[in-house]
């Protein structure tokens, strides 16, 4: 395929993915916004007012970046894992397999679709958060870079999960037993400076901590971890995950017999 033809294939995949999640917007775009709005009300406005300051900010302002990041992570991941596994399950993935579309375009198309959903939901959640808190973004480019890389990383992770999955149970195991604990323990609701030293060390093994803190740094200008380490770490994870995903697609793992 010529580069122009590859671009057409990429554009087709993006268009298909966007059409999919906008067609079922009641399932894909509304629930995360309602969930996050409830987090804002319960943890921010009701309980947060009794917690006081965290990281030098009132609790509501502190928790907003983490909650935005949580919605981006969950939606990027679930979009790709669900879409790609459904394509495998219905065998419609064969439409792509028999075509000359290269594996990296297939990956970019699905990941692009997942990242777009993550960013759209993140954007809506950010807009809703403005009802509860005044946002003054400190480092706009860091904020954009982190949210973009995070949505890409979790879209790729969703794709890897979908490649290995054999049943619909398999696509809910990782989000339930791995992703949710990592997110909740990744500094969304608290600063790890509140933890004993040992648990601070354990927390630093959690990649989500770096994403949440890098995003919080972009929005509020504070972080529990070094921002450069965070950015380098996220980029490294993106490169590794993309390499693994591409390898699995090239080998036709769980797709070609």
């Amino acid at each position, binding site marked *: *395929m*010529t580069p*122009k*033809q*590859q671009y*057409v*294939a990429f*554009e*087709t*995949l993006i*268009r*298909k993915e966007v*059409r999919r999640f906008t*067609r079922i917007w009641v399932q894909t775009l509304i629930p995360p916004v309602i969930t996050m709005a409830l987090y804002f009300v319960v943890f921010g406005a009701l309980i947060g007012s009794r917690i006081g300051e965290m990281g030098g900010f009132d609790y509501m302002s502190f928790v907003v970046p983490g909650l935005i990041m949580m919605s981006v992570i969950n939606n990027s991941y679930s979009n790709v894992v669900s879409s790609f596994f*459904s*394509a495998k399950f*219905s*065998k*419609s993935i*064969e*439409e*792509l*397999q*028999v*075509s*000359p*579309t*290269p594996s990296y375009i297939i990956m970019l198309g699905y990941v692009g679709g997942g990242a777009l959903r993550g960013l759209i939901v993140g954007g809506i959640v950010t807009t809703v958060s403005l009802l509860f808190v005044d946002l003054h973004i400190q480092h706009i480019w860091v904020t954009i870079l982190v949210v973009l890389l995070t949505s890409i990383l979790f879209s790729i992770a969703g794709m890897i999960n979908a490649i290995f999955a054999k049943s619909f149970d398999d696509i809910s195991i990782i989000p339930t037993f791995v992703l949710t604990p990592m997110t909740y323990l990744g500094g969304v609701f608290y600063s790890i400076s509140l933890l004993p030293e040992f648990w601070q060390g354990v927390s630093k093994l959690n990649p989500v901590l770096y994403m949440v803190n890098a995003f919080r740094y972009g929005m509020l200008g504070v972080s529990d971890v070094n921002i450069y380490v965070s950015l380098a770490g996220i980029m490294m994870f993106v490169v590794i995950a993309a390499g693994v995903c591409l390898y699995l697609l090239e080998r*036709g793992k769980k797709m*070609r*017999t």
Partner: protein
Amino acid sequence: MPAAIEIKSLSKVYGNGFKALNGLSLTVEQGDFYALLGPNGAGKSTTIGILSSLVKKTDGKVRIFGCDIDTDFSKAKEFIGVVPQEFNFNMFEKVEDIIINQAGYYGLPRAIAKERSEKYLKKLGLWDKRAEPSRGLSGGMKRRLMIVRALIHEPKLLILDEPTAGVDIELRRSMWQFLTEINEQGTTIILTTHYLEEAESLCRNVGIINNGELVENTSIKNLLKQLTKETFVFDLAAPLDVPPTIDGYTVEKTDNATLEIAVDKGQSLNVIFDQLTQKGVSVISMRSKSNRLEELFVSLVESSQAGKGGAS
């Protein structure tokens, strides 16, 4: 001019140890209408799977219009359109979206994709359904949708894996007409089917696979020349208690008013009618018991199995 398909010593052993292909060699020339026949589990779908990249071969060489799939599968894929046995499209997507997406995967610009989509959807009677989700289509419409999808990039080779399974006679005939038309326009077609009448009506050449090996590869004409015996069914005007004997022929009574008579190649039907008339038996109709090709197919498959000690 390279062959449309050139397969040499192709073998496939699945993870569970099942040997689906056992050194299959086969050539299909450009412009051919080729039938790939064989009993269930013979290796037809595995062969098609390897050609379309859905199955990894274990060993052997495959060239598609001269492109080696080991070194340039991407180019080879551009030549092929595949209509699989099972429905494999997203049931929630609209008919036209399925077609236009497929065109996109081949790098076709959207404007051309829309133009071709209209052309083929109209040709196969699906234009009125273009805005409907594919799950709402009947079985026959779903099969036609897969044919349109396979043709959208106008491939030089169309592979159809049992395209008329479960399709009513009228629709089957219209699909035959359409396939003949595109073959006449230059598209090479490979067809697998269980309807041997279909292969006889449509195809010029035929390959019969059994136990992962090619047991016959010839023209339909040559294959039919191998036919040595044909059974005819005679419906009688009045019931008979005992079947009549006819010298040189085997006569069996299936019920009181029906006879089955086996006729060897070169034997005359006139003799049968003469003797039946002499014995006062009146025939009201006569037909061939089964498709001629079907008889040959069964005998070829049986003899190949006998050669392997009756393995199935």
